C-alpha cells in the first residue's frame, strides 16, 4: 500500500530564521525553498499527486501563480517538483482533476482530451479520468437502486469521460498509466462503476468522493468493488481523509491512496497537530502551542481594528511568550510560569477576548491542559527527524507557515513510517526498522519506528 502525498506547493524556506522570524536573506520563493523530500533528506511518501485544480488555469483558479502553472506544463511535473534526482526518479507522479474544486458546476470544466494533454505535457506517470463528484451517499441501498437524477447524471458523465480518457491517452501507453475514477451514490453503484471501468480496459481504479464518507462507508464500497473486479485490478483511494485509520483497510488489497491529512492537521486540527509513533504501532497526537504573530494574525488584527486590543501590548506579550517557551526548552523556566505567559497571549487569538475577561472559561482551561501535556512530554525531543533535531521546541509552535508546515512534514515522516509498518506492507518494510540515537533512552522507547529513515 503506497502512501502518495497530495502536494499543494508545500515547500518551506530551509534558511528561515526562527528567532527573528524572517525569511533567509534574498530568498526567492519556491526556488530557494525545499519540498518535504528535500528538507527531510528522504521522501516521506511513496509518490506525489498533483491536482489540476491546484495548478489552476483558465477553468479553476489554482494555487500556482500563472507563471508557475505555465512552467509546470513546460518543464513537466518531475522537474517542477524536483523529483528529477536519481534517488527520487522511481517515485510515481499521479495527476487528478481535483473534482472538489468544481463540484458545484453542471459538468466538469475539463474534457478528457485536454486532461490527457495536461498529463502528457507535464509527463505524469499516472493520471485519473475526469470525474464528477456525487453527493448524498446512502450506504443501505442495494445494487443500483436509489440515486437521484443528478447522481445518475454525474455517474454517466464520469463513465463517459473515463471511456474517452482511455482513448485520449492510448498514445501515451508505456509511459503513462490511466486510472479510471469511480463515483457512485452507494456501494452497489460504485461497484457497477468499477465493473464498467474494468470492462473499458482499466486495470487501475481510483475511488473518488470519499472525503465526506465515514471509514465504515468507504469500507463497504471497497468490499462491494472488490467483489466485482478481478483480484489483479489495482485500487487507489483519492483524497483519503481518514488517513489515520489506514491500518484497518488492510483486507481490501489497496494499491495506493493519496492524502494531505498528516500535513494539514499540523495547522488545521484543533488538537492533533504533532504526530509521534506510539508503542502499539499507532499514533500519539499532541496539540501545538499557539503563539500567533501579533501583527499578522487575522483574529488579532480584527480585535485591534475594533480597538479591543492595543497592538503595542500584544507585541510585548508575544515576545514574552516566545522567550518563556524557549527558556522552558532549555530547562531555564518552570512549567506553570511558562503556561501562564503562553495562555495570557494565546487566549485573545484563540477565543477572541483577552484572558482577564474570561478567567474560568472552559476553552482556556482545556487549552491549558493540552499545552501542559505537550510541554511535559516534550515530544519534539523524542523525534530524531531532520526537522525536529534542527528546530527543537519551535516545531510545536503553532505560528505561521514555516513552523506549521515543518511540523506537517515531520508528521508525513511519522505517517509514512506507520504505513510501511502495516502488515499488508510487511514485505517491504525491512528498511524502516531504524532506531533513533541508541544512547538516548527516550528515543529508544520509540524505536519501533521513528520518523526518519536514516539518522
Amino acid at each position, binding site marked *: 500500500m503506497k502512501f502518495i502525498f497530495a502536494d499543494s506547493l508545500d515547500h518551506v524556506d530551509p534558511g528561515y530564521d526562527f528567532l527573528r522570524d*524572517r525569511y533567509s536573506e*534574498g530568498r*526567492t520563493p519556491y526556488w530557494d525553498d525545499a519540498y518535504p523530500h528535500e528538507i527531510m533528506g528522504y521522501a516521506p511518501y511513496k509518490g506525489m499527486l498533483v491536482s489540476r485544480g491546484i495548478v489552476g*488555469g*483558465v477553468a479553476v483558479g489554482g494555487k500556482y*501563480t*500563472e*507563471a*508557475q*502553472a*505555465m*512552467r509546470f506544463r*513546460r*518543464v513537466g511535473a518531475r522537474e517542477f517538483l524536483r523529483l528529477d534526482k536519481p534517488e527520487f526518479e522511481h517515485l510515481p507522479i499521479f495527476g487528478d482533476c481535483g473534482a472538489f474544486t468544481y463540484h458545484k458546476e453542471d459538468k466538469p470544466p475539463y*474534457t478528457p482530451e*485536454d486532461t490527457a*494533454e495536461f498529463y502528457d*505535457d507535464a509527463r505524469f506517470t499516472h493520471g485519473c479520468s475526469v470525474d464528477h463528484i456525487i453527493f448524498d451517499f446512502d450506504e443501505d441501498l442495494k445494487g443500483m437502486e436509489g440515486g437521484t437524477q443528478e447522481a445518475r447524471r454525474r455517474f454517466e458523465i464520469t463513465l463517459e469521460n473515463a471511456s474517452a480518457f482511455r482513448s485520449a491517452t492510448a498514445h501515451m501507453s508505456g509511459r503513462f498509466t490511466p486510472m479510471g475514477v469511480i463515483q457512485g451514490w452507494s456501494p452497489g453503484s460504485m461497484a457497477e462503476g468499477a465493473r464498467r471501468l474494468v470492462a473499458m480496459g482499466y486495470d487501475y481504479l481510483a475511488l473518488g468522493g470519499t472525503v465526506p464518507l465515514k471509514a465504515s462507508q468507504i469500507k463497504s464500497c471497497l468490499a462491494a468493488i472488490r467483489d466485482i473486479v478481478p483480484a489483479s485490478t489495482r485500487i487507489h483511494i483519492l483524497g483519503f481523509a481518514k488517513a489515520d485509520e489506514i491500518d484497518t483497510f488492510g483486507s481490501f488489497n489497496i494499491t495506493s491512496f493519496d492524502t494531505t491529512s498528516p500535513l494539514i492537521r499540523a495547522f488545521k486540527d484543533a488538537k492533533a497537530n504533532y504526530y509521534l509513533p506510539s508503542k502499539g504501532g499507532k499514533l500519539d497526537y499532541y496539540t501545538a502551542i499557539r503563539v500567533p*504573530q501579533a*501583527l*499578522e494574525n487575522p483574529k488579532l*488584527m480584527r480585535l*485591534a*481594528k*475594533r*480597538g*479591543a486590543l*492595543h*497592538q*503595542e501590548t500584544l507585541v510585548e506579550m508575544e515576545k514574552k511568550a516566545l522567550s518563556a517557551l524557549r527558556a522552558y526548552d532549555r530547562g531555564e523556566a518552570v512549567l506553570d510560569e511558562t503556561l501562564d505567559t503562553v495562555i495570557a497571549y494565546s487566549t485573545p487569538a484563540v477565543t477572541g477576548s483577552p484572558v482577564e475577561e474570561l478567567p474560568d472559561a472552559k476553552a482556556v482551561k482545556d487549552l491549558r491542559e493540552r499545552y501542559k501535556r505537550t510541554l511535559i512530554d516534550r515530544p519534539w525531543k523524542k523525534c530524531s527527524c531532520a526537522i525536529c533535531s534542527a528546530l527543537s521546541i519551535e516545531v510545536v509552535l503553532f505560528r505561521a507557515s514555516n513552523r506549521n508546515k515543518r511540523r506537517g512534514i515531520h508528521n508525513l515522516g511519522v505517517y509514512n513510517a506507520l504505513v510501511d509498518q502495516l502488515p499488508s506492507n510487511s514485505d517491504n518494510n525491512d528498511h524502516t526498522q531504524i532506531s533513533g540515537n541508541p544512547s538516548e533512552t527516550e528515543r529508544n522507547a520509540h524505536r519501533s519506528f521513528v520518523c526518519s529513515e536514516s539518522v
Partner: protein
Amino acid sequence: MTILKFPAIRAKQSETHTVLSFAAKASDLKNFAVIERVARDEGGALSGFQRPQIAGHIREIRDYLEKPEAILPNPIVVAFTTGITISEEAADGRCMVEIDAMGGAPGLVVDGQQRLTALSQVEEKDFQVFVSAIVCRDEEELRRQFVLINNTRPLPKSLIYELLPTVRGLPRRLGDRSVAADLAARLNYDDGSSLKGKIYQHTNPTGIIRDTAIQRVVINSMSDGVMRELIREPDGADLSFALVSDFYRAVQTVFLNEWEGHTPKTSRLVHGAGIMSLGYVMEVLALLDGARTVHDFSRGLACLVGNTAWTSGEWNFGENDRRHWKSVQNVNRDIVTLAQYLIGIVRADVKRRRADDVEPKQASM
C-alpha cells in the same frame, strides 16, 4: 524623566496653530507620543484615528533602518492638545520645547506610525528622527489634521516603475520590478530594439504597448522562465534584451498586418492580452524548440497564421468558447486562455516538425 526638553525651530504658518520641528530619539518619542488606533466604545462613539500596523510594511522599513546608511528625512508628525510649552523663543524662530509626560504621553502620532513602530524594533541603534509637532485646539482639530495629511495622492505607478532602475537597495518586491522596468526601458530606447519607441511610459506617453504588459513578460520569464537562466550568464542582460527584442520582431514579421499602425483598441496583438500571452509562447519556443533568434521564433510562430483573430473574426478556444476578437480582455483569465490556445498549436507544430526532421533535435519533449 517625565519632562522632556528639545531645542526646536518654529515656523510661522498659521495664527491658530503652532508648528515646530525638532530632533528626538526614537526612545524619547515612545515616551511622549502614542499611536491611538481608531475604535468605537460600547455606545458607538469613535476614538483615535490610526489604522492598525501593517507587519509587512514595518518589516520593510526595519530592514532598511538596520542598514548603516539608512536615513529618515521625513518627520514623524505628532499633534498635541496639552502637555507642551514653548519658551525662549527668538525672532528667528529658534525656541525650546518642553513636553510634560508626567501623566502619560500627551502627543498623538498623526503621521509615521509604521516608521515609528519599525524604529522601536531596531535594537542596535537609537535613531534620531525629526519630529514635526502641531499644537491643536482640540481632538477634532487633531483628527482633521490626520485626514488632511494622510489624504495624499500616491505617485503614478508608471513613474515609480520608470524611476526604479536608477535606485539601488530597494526591497525585493520592488527589486524584481526594477529589473523588468530596466529591460522595458532599454527595449523602448535602444536603437537595436524591435519595440523602440513603442512602449508607453510616463516619459513616452505616445507609446502603444503598455509598459506593465512587457514588464510582466519579463518578470514571468525571470521568475519561472528562460531568462532565469539567461540572466546568470556574464552578459545576461544583453542576452535577455536580445531574446525579447528578437521574439517581438518575429511577432511583427509574422503578423505584419495586425501589428503595423495598430493600437490596443484596433488589434489584440499590441494589447496587453496579446503581448502577455505571446510571452508564454516565447517560453515554449525557447525551451522546447531551443529558439533564440528572429529566424527561430518566426519559424515557430508561422503555424499560428490563420488561427488568430487579432483584429477581426473570432477566437475558437474550444467547442463552448468561441468569442468575438475584441472580447479578449486584459485579465488573467483571458490571458491564460489565449496563451493556452496559442501554445497548444505551437506545441503540436514543434512535435510535427521534430517528427519530420531527419535528424531529431536534442531538446526533449
